């Protein structure tokens, strides 16, 4: 199987974002290497995200009538988005592979839903945030502020509070 994402713990491809500076993303030989400029241990969500992407990459198909392999550029776009918006305490998203080879990310906690798609083949790049009955959407490169509005609700430690009438 091709190597889609470089992962290591002892070399330059170590996943790690817990530093003041943003991570450096290097695309070489069609392998995505996520590494931190200063080292540091990876955040809680990194391992599960990479593991899931590798799992999806290994699937022969995701639709009974035809689907494309996981698209390298869509994976890179999704990872760039995660690097920008994820906090160390953010729950990892559920990750899906679209039939086009695109990537879907989704979070669902209580009445908060976030869904993001990265699909260059269909020119579909969109982040949707839903809170209760209200819905907003932005392209991923402009969705940091939108995501930040619900980041607390997507934290691992967030506990739903009972509503009072």
């Amino acid at each position, binding site marked *: 199987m091709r190597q889609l994402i470089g992962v290591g713990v002892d070399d330059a491809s170590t996943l790690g974002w817990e530093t003041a500076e943003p991570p450096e993303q290097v695309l070489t030989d069609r392998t995505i290497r996520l590494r931190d400029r200063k080292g540091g241990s990876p955040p809680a969500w990194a391992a599960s995200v990479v593991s899931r992407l590798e799992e999806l990459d290994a699937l022969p198909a995701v639709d009974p009538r035809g689907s494309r392999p996981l698209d390298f550029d869509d994976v890179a776009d999704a990872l760039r988005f995660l690097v920008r918006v994820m906090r160390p305490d953010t729950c990892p998203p559920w990750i899906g*592979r679209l039939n086009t080879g695109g990537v879907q990310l989704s979070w669902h906690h209580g009445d908060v839903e976030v869904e993001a798609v990265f699909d260059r083949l269909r020119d579909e790049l969109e982040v949707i945030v839903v809170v209760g009955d209200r819905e907003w959407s932005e392209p991923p490169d402009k969705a940091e502020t939108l995501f930040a509005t619900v980041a607390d609700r997507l934290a691992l430690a967030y506990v739903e509070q009972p509503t009072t009438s």
Partner: protein
Amino acid sequence: MLVYRLIPTCNCQAIDGEWEFQSGAFDNASPMNPGESSEDMSVALGDMLAVLSRFPESLPIDAPACAANPDDWGVAVLASRFLLHEESQELRRTPQDDEPAHGDVRGKKNLKRRRRLKKHANWVVQPARPPD
């Protein structure tokens, strides 16, 4: 009429021990051959299943695409009325050699529409393999 969509576990999130299909489960197939439409979502047509005395619960076992691992596939149901009148989709009878009840739900399906299809759909049968 009802239509039935095969859904693999890779398009489902495990929540509280149950499979929950995600919006990507209601996506158009990517054409494998020149000339095929890129706006078709494969389904089984309920009226044809009835004519053939078949049940939607058996689709994961019947479908050749699922033969390798039928336990990894579930079946969701959607109403054709919803697809035609609320989502502007076209329902086509496209019998195949390996599935005489085959149909296609033709039309664009962007993220917002896929989300509405997800909201509308219900499980007939979840994948037999329980979530880890």
